[in-house]
């Protein structure tokens, strides 16, 4: 189990006041909140920040944590001995998720310190015929999966309460069909795969939030897909037949003569397919850029000089001249 330095996570000193904790948390939360931030590791950072705040913003938890920090520093290890928490009172407030169950997003370190109190104090007593809760999880797919459909194996770890009210951690392996046309930001609902019902109540649903894995070539906007295509100056000027990479294999495309950099060529229907028959596929946009050959040999320099001579009247800066 890894020791967590919650003060370092929030960028504050152990002597920080409760107001300092709150200010540091808020500042970092604004930067890394997954609904706001575009940082690639925002979600993981936000979890760490939230956990640090949960531990330090509550004076009871903070006192318990400080005690563990002292043990850690003095080389006595930080694994709390049995009954270590007897000296601390936990009022059992809103400590984690809204589920009344241990929050799987907490680190093992946090669970070891605070998990037991939190689990005991929260959650409504199970009633007869209570429906299970709806659960949420994230699944990453490749852009190509949206074109072809795919199967994904999803590992779900969730606490379960048995008939005696005892809790155990249950790992389920789900094999999920990813339908063609599914896009990043959308949700797939799996009926009855959420939390189990109690006393004969129906199980909840599982919502899988789909996320596209970062792609080195393609950009996605709704169902439309964009790719940059570098061409040689003579291909742009004279036109060319080129092979273009799409997420679903390559296609032949005509670059019209007289194309300028930034020109968008549309391949109709080559974007992400519709999820159902009545939804049309998106388009693939090929955005041209012009790559200039290097003038690093005498022959190349001669070619550019010949071009300069041939285009003696060309005025590239006409638009910015008075």
């Amino acid at each position, binding site marked *: 189990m890894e020791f967590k330095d919650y003060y370092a996570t929030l960028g504050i000193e152990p002597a920080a006041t409760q107001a300092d904790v709150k200010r540091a948390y808020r500042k970092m939360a604004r930067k890394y*909140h997954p609904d706001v931030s575009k940082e690639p590791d925002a979600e993981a950072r936000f979890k760490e920040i939230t956990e640090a705040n949960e531990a330090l913003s509550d004076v009871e938890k903070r006192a318990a944590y400080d005690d563990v920090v002292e043990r850690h520093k003095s080389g006595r290890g930080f694994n709390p001995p049995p009954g270590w928490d007897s000296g601390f009172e936990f009022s059992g407030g809103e400590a984690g998720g809204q589920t009344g169950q241990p929050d799987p997003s907490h680190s093992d370190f946090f669970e070891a310190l605070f998990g037991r109190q939190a689990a005991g104090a929260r959650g409504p007593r199970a009633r007869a015929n209570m429906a299970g809760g709806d659960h949420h999880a994230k699944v990453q797919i490749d852009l190509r999966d949206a074109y072809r459909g795919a199967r994904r194996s999803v590992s779900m770890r969730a606490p379960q309460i048995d008939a005696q009210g005892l809790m155990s951690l249950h790992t389920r392996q789900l094999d999920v*069909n990813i339908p063609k046309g599914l896009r990043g930001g959308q949700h797939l609902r799996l*009926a009855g795969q959420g939390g189990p019902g109690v006393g004969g109540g129906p199980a909840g649903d599982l919502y899988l939030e789909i996320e596209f894995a970062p792609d080195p070539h393609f950009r996605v906007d709704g169902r439309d897909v964009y790719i940059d295509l570098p061409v040689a100056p003579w291909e742009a000027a004279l036109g060319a037949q080129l092979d273009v990479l799409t997420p679903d294999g390559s296609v032949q495309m005509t670059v019209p003569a007289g194309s300028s950099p930034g020109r968008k060529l549309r391949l109709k229907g080559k974007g992400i397919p519709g999820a159902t028959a009545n939804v049309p596929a998106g388009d693939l946009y090929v955005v041209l850029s012009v790559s200039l050959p290097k003038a690093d040999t005498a022959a190349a320099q001669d070619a550019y000089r010949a071009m300069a001579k041939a285009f003696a009247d060309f005025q590239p800066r006409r638009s910015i001249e008075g």
Partner: protein
Amino acid sequence: MTPVTDTDPPLLFGVVVEEEVQFTLVELGRACRADGAQLAALVAEGVLTPSGVDEQDWQFDGTSLRRARSALRLAHDFDLSVANTAFVLDLLDQIEALQARLRQLGAPGR
């Protein structure tokens, strides 16, 4: 807690929420783990726009799930009022529209 693992799961087929699902107020509340009053406040502020006049007739389209969850998370994590939450979501919509423009233009790194 003893980890238990199932083996050999069947292939599961789901529905695409954004394209095939309409929620009632109760269903959306269950999916977001929110109560009806919280969602009704978001409707009153214009964050969510169901069809139907009375609460019991409200039908939310599938895109409401993401928006409602985002609104509830922001309100909870930053102690925002409903009006402030609506304001933040509008600004996020504007950022998203600008980022879509950048993707179309071929901005590096996106």
